[in-house]
């Protein structure tokens, strides 16, 4: 658990946190969309472009070798961080959406009409649409694992949906709209009993939890650097080796080939098979730096602090008459999605913005969840370890002021 002084020191690592917005100190509570970047990561980016910017893997010259080493070291950092056996099981992608598309696209060669794939009711659109496209292509059937009012997946219904036709199961580790932490290990075990592969979208979990992929047993896992104190445009796909070998490549191009003739091309080994073209070298290196930064604080401490802070802010918010929180799962963290009776989330969000408070409003790319609760959207405040209890109080006071103005 982080102490007050520790959080103050951490805040000093993030230059953006001393920005003013509309004449007031920035209060940043849109961390589930993008987290802020510490000096250690910014410096890594500056250092890369100042000292060793080069194309990797093919160059014989010094800069190329330095860049290649740094890129591969970042991969090893991720490997170790996520408890993965081999570095080539970590594929660098442009982010979670790209990662999911690699798997969905590859699976189209392995699925046939009548196969079933399961997707949870609390998914981000990027973990729904690629599978719908896959079903259209293959004739496989998409089925939905339902959730209850609290925003928890119905494991009984999930169990009933699983059968020998089930080939894949997809769900998020933590819901971006509700903050629910799903029981990954248990759900993976259930899927494996019928021989189905499991992809877990870890975009929201990787910034908040210690994630050991070997222990969780997942077949695929995705994460995005920009939600973990890293830059945008870089993320990762983890895959079990047998799956990554089985999946056909996603894109053709440089870097992903072993040999090319006009008769036939043989593909490169992992991970390069899935990294066609020049990768986001600087992004990958900075992703590694971001993970190292978070580990220097400790993800267990980060997670415990964020959970307490989220609980504190939730309790305070609930003192506002008519305020309802969506997503009240027993196991949840970091995200508070709410509405105030009779008020539109856009109105509250716009007024908070005038007060220098950054929250997100809308359907959070998870329209099925909004349909489930029959609401147009919510206001979402999402916390990070650099947010403070004083900021939680300022959010509550801001919401109260907005409500007073609007009612």
């Amino acid at each position, binding site marked *: 658990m982080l102490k007050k002084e520790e959080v103050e020191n951490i805040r000093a690592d993030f230059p953006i946190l001393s920005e003013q917005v*509309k004449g007031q100190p920035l209060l940043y509570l849109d961390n589930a969309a993008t987290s802020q970047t510490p000096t250690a990561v910014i410096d890594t980016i500056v250092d890369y472009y100042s000292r060793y910017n080069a194309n990797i893997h093919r160059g014989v010259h010094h800069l190329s070798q330095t860049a290649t080493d740094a890129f591969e070291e970042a991969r090893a950092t991720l490997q170790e961080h996520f408890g993965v056996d081999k570095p080539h099981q970590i594929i660098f992608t442009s982010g979670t959406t790209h990662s999911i598309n690699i798997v969905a696209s590859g699976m189209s060669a392995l699925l046939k009409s009548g196969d079933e794939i399961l997707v949870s009711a609390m998914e981000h659109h990027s973990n729904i649409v690629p599978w719908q496209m896959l079903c259209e292509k293959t004739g496989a059937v998409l089925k939905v694992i339902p959730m209850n009012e609290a925003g928890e997946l119905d494991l009984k219904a999930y169990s009933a949906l699983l059968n020998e036709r089930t080939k894949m199961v997809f769900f998020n580790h933590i819901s971006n709209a509700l903050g629910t932490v799903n029981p990954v290990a248990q759900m993976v075990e259930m899927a494996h009993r019928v021989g189905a592969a499991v992809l877990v979208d870890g975009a929201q979990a990787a910034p908040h939890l210690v994630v050991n992929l070997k222990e969780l047993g997942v077949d695929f896992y995705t994460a995005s650097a920009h939600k973990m104190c890293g830059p945008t445009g870089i993320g990762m796909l983890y895959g079990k080796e047998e799956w990554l070998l089985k999946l056909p490549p996603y894109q053709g191009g440089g870097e992903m080939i072993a040999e090319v003739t006009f008769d036939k091309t043989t593909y490169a080994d992992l991970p390069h098979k899935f990294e066609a073209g020049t990768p986001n070298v600087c992004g990958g290196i900075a992703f590694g730096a971001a993970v190292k930064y978070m580990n220097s604080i400790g993800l267990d401490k980060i997670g415990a602090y964020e959970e307490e802070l989220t609980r504190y802010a939730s309790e305070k918010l609930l003192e506002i008459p008519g305020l309802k929180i969506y997503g009240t799962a027993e196991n949840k963290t970091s995200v508070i999605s709410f509405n105030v009776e009779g*008020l*539109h989330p*856009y*109105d509250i*969000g*716009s*007024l908070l*913005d*005038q*007060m220098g408070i950054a929250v997100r*409003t*809308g359907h959070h790319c998870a329209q099925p969840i909004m349909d489930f609760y029959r609401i*147009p959207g919510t206001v979402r405040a999402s916390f990070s370890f650099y947010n403070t209890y004083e900021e939680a109080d300022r959010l509550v006071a801001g919401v109260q002021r907005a409500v007073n*103005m*609007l009612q």
Partner: protein
Amino acid sequence: MKAISDIQEEIIDEFMLFEDWMQRYEYIIDLGKSLPLIDEAHKTENNLIKGCQSKVWVHADMEEDKLHFTADSEAILTKGIIAILIRVFSGQPPQAIVDASTDFIDQIGLKEHLSATRANGLVSMIKQMKLYAVAFQSQRQ
């Protein structure tokens, strides 16, 4: 009948009276709350404006050569903004609406104080009101 440009001047003057944007927002909220109710029958899919993040309906009627707008939205701030647009355009001849400049939006600083999605919505609302004017104008000719 006041000219559109005169009404716009009045609105610019009113906005200048406020010290900060919170006060301006309060004013917009009051305008939103006092926007006359639209006939429920006009809250149709056809009258829904595309490009707004909250649902917005705008309906137009022609009476004695003047165009009259009614509107509604789920969000109060959006209603307040429509109320301003209705004050500018409602009760004007279609040609005057088609020809009207909308620089006053920039002059009161409304656009820069709206989120990008809302600013797009504002542009869509103005476009829709002008389209109504064009449509009624061409009906008359």
